[in-house]
């Protein structure tokens, strides 16, 4: 679980967040303050799909599954 969490955090902080003064922690809300825009969410979903080895249907892309890195890994990592 922590491997997946670290991988995802590294991806978000290294690839998605272009503002280097901003760093996401495991429990940082990802969808407040405009951290993730419309392009970044597509990249994030594509990365998670690669991690878990399956496509994520749009119906699963809701706040309760995507609020933080911890929540994402708990929801998708267990499948």
């Amino acid at each position, binding site marked *: 679980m922590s491997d997946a969490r670290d991988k995802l955090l590294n991806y978000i902080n290294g690839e998605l967040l272009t503002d280097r003064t901003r760093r996401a922690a495991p429990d940082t809300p990802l969808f407040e303050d405009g951290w993730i825009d*419309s392009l970044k*969410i597509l990249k994030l979903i594509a990365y998670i799909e690669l991690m878990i080895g399956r496509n994520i249907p749009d119906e699963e*892309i809701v706040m309760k599954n995507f609020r933080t890195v911890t929540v994402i890994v708990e929801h998708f990592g267990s499948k």
Partner: protein
Amino acid sequence: MTTTKEISIDDAMTQLSRLHEWMPAGRETVLGPHMLALVDWVDLRVVEFALKAGASELPVPRLIAHSVLERAGYFESFPASIVEESEGGCMPPATCYHCYAKLAATSLREPVLLTCIARCRRNESEEESGRLQTFTMREIVFIGSAGWVRKQRQEWTDRILAFAQTLHLVVQLDAATDSFFAGGEARGRKLLQQIKGLKIELRAQMDAKETPLAISSFNLHETFFSRCFDFQLADGIEAHSGCVAFGLERWALALALTLGPDKAFSLVEQVQR
């Protein structure tokens, strides 16, 4: 009296058509005098709510400039074919674009609450009972800090839900997304809208067998329009915006089908007496 529980939406439509109150004509629908009066009646009720809340009425022209829709990123999210171009501009696909254009390049000293009405048009291919290509949309637009805008949306959602229930409409609130987003990055906008709960629809049950029809929507745009049109709050803080939209013909149709035409039309007469 016949109720919608006893007749299907098609039967009720037939009844309205027989009364010459709801008449499909090609891809358009022509409304009779009682339905038009009912549309005005719903609009007046909404305007009363808006004025009581401190809104100012913004008169808007019949057409909107193509450049305004372009600046609003409309054509990046929706197929251009939806918009009806005519000499001098476009039929607006939604009313609220006029408001953002009006506020372009301004600094707002205090939160703004506006209301306006426009005949709108979307060249949609989807055919659904109650879905008109040309329709009347009343909107209430709120612009201010993130917290204020979010509070406004909640208050309007509560207010209009209660209003619909007072009218005995069978309604529900559902999370929604705009249905005409194109592919590519627009899918990202749609997913963000979904994750953040930016769009809520008030849907009215017209008939037990039919999917409820959206009659209003309650929307948050975050800083999207303030960035597109370069307006901000006075102290340099980014302005957030939100809006409530009313599809007035749909409200009138929901009333006519739920209450029955006679009872629905009598709402107008009660005021006129």
